């Protein structure tokens, strides 16, 4: 099972770097879809020796939502939004990609420190989950458009999903359903909010929301 996890880790890291470095219009949701698919596979591989219906349902639900539904919603949203450039970040594309390298190092170091506490968790997945969390937060902080912030939020959620899939053994379903529900609601709320902000104010730049400050 370790080789599979290694591949997933490599691909997961690549999608994260792709999201950090993406400049083109539709690339964000597509990379996100791929990443969601990868993360959905993790619980199946982890529990390969004793696969239960619970785990399978969870994985399928996750893949459907994060691999298909959310990216589709975001793509539709992007199609309706009238802005010209997808990515106008506070930190440039090159800067973001370069930023990924020390963060990856930090993730490896943190994973090393965490291993004694989480004996059953595969090291590679631990690195991936921490890295995903950091990248998600980084995207939320540095991207101007609400759409990329939603993507950042979902990357963060992927990280949490992977972490819970490897670290928690017993109450996996309960925890995951909770987080998944959060993400589900969040995407729709944000989607609706983005559309409304756009139609009301004619922009989708989150930093311009300071205009609303009293």
């Amino acid at each position, binding site marked *: 099972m370790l080789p599979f996890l290694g591949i997933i880790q490599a691909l997961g890291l690549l999608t994260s770097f792709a999201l950090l470095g993406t400049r083109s219009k539709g690339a964000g949701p597509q990379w996100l879809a791929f990443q969601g698919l990868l993360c959905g596979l993790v619980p199946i591989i982890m529990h390969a020796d004793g696969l239960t219906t619970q785990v399978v349902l969870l994985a399928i639900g996750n893949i459907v939502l994060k691999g298909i539904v959310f990216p589709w919603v975001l793509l539709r949203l992007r199609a309706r939004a009238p802005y010209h450039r997808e990515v106008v970040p506070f930190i440039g594309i090159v800067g973001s990609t370069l930023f990924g390298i020390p963060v990856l190092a930090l993730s490896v*170091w*943190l994973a090393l*420190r*965490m291993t004694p506490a989480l004996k059953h968790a595969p090291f590679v997945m631990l690195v991936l989950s921490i890295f995903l969390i950091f990248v998600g*937060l980084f995207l939320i*902080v540095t991207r101007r458009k609400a759409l990329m912030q939603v993507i950042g939020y979902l990357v963060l959620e992927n990280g949490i999903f992977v972490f819970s899939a490897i670290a928690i053994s017993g109450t996996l379903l309960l925890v995951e359903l909770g987080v998944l529900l959060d993400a589900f609601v969040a995407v729709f709320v944000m989607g609706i909010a983005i559309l409304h902000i756009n139609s009301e104010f004619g922009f989708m730049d989150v*930093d311009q929301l*300071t205009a609303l400050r009293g």
Partner: protein
Amino acid sequence: MVMVFATAILLLLFGGFLAVVLCARSGVSQVAGQVGAISGSALGLVSAIRVLLTGKAEGMSSVWHMPGGSLHFQIDVLSAFFLLPVFGLSILAALYGRSYLADRKGGYALAGSWFHLNMLTVGMALVIAAHDGLLFLLAWEIMALSPFFLVAFDDQKAEVRKAAWIYLSATHLGTAFLLIFFVLLGRLAGTSDFDGYAAALRDNPALSSTMFLLALIGFGSKAGIVPTHVWLPEAHPAAPSHASALMSGAMIKVGIYGVVRTLTFLGAPEPWWGWLLIAIGASSGVLGVLFALAQHDLKRLLAYHSVENIGIILLGIGIGVLGLAEGIRPLAVIGFAAGLLHVLNHSIFKGLLFLGAGAVQRAAHGVELEELGGLLKRMPWTGATFLIGATAIVGLPPLNGFVSEFLLFYASFFAVVQPAVNIAVAGLIVLVVMGLIGGLAAACFAKAFGVVFLGSPRSPEAGEAREVARPMCAAMAILALLCVVFGLAAPTVVSALDRVVAAATGLTIGAARDQLTAVTGPLTIAISVFAVCIVIAASVWAVRSRRLALAAVRTAQVWGCGYPKPTPKMQYTASSFVQPLTTQFHLFVRNREVLVPPEGYFPASASYSSESSDPFLRGLFAPVFRWFDYLSHLEIFQHGLVHGYVLYLVITLVALLIWGSVW
């Protein structure tokens, strides 16, 4: 049978929510709030009275999804006693409130005021019923926040907003100490349940003393002890009068409840706790009444009298604690009985006086003393009930205020004759202080009642004042009746306090009863003598009225030193009436005076005005808050950028992760 209490809380909440939901239709929304408040509080009153009668504590406990706390409520005798003013005043405030607010516009504001009025009652009831530290703090926050919105009812006025902020700062200053208090106590005891606290502090006097100080500051700021009283004179004039009545009659008593409840955790008290309580009580009492003397605003005056009465309550509890510490049982029992009974009495007459002030405000469009006058003829119900309230608060027999002050005097005289010098000195101090307070309070209410209700109107508005609506009169009449009943039935009331005093002091019920029975004898004599005197005076008055009605009576101007045309301006003003006293106490009462004296042989115009300001607000709190203003530079961190806020989260997260990994 804690279900009654739970239903009461739910009814209060439901009424409040319904008022908000229906806010588009102002009339219906107000009825919903009122009905919820009255029905809920009536049920709550029933549950409290039942506990007082049976003496059995009622409680419920269930698991709470809050880490470190449990949902443990318990209404024991002490809680039930403090629930009486809360629920009782809530009923009357609601009865009074709808007529009081009848001419106000604005569905949202009105619905909000009903919601917060009910939330205030809920908060107070939950604080008193809570048997768990965390639950207590949560309920305390509900209780502390609701008045902020009540005070800010007329939020379009700048001074009202200022008053609300002063209240909010003062209340959180106290909460900060309570937070430390409960967290420390919880850590020591290893549980947040009240049952565990006593065991944790049993044999540790130093720790108990620290806890006592924390509780005294935290609860004292809510009760309004000097110098943390500054919010009272600001908040009460700004709030609607029925809210002031509930805040002054019930909410500040919750602070006293906190002190008394804390004393039950702390084990055997140290003598200096009693001394400290007496010192705080004496300074609050004397300064409260002195500041009250100088006020021109009826509600500010009443607010300062709340400070004074909290002082009297603390004097009683202080004497009681001293008695407990020195093992002098009569002193302990009667001291606590005096303090606790004064809690109940003060809530009755102060509720009445605030409702009366509200009626004056509504009828004469103001509570500025220099613009009122002659209202007794125009508003007989308000005038008569206010007079009863004023007589009671001054402590004149045979009304209820007399009873608790009598107990306090009894305890002090008992202390004076003790062989131990320190006890005798404490008794002497309380005697002197109580004498001073009583005299000054009498002067102050002579001024308040005289200027507002006697004489002739000083403004056209006061001249056109009419009696207020019936429900308002009814609420005031009920409270006035209670003042009389609690006064005349004093021996019964005092001996019924045995369970409450036993719960507060930790003595047995029998021991408490023995001491209290000893007081009822003298009390009965005092009450009956004065009752007989009043009956005689009333008969003489009746005979005189009859004789005058039969005879031909000629009315004429009062002799005006030969001046034939007196005007209302020639009456005593509020400030001139008390000027001899305020000059005497110039050390404490610093009025800002502007005097333009008449000049020449034919003076054209002259004026005098004085403005009182609280020296503690000016000298102690204003500099501190000016310093806090510098902190407003930190606003650059609150920039409104979502990215920035998430960045703070990230930085904190990374820092915590690294910190956790390295160490």
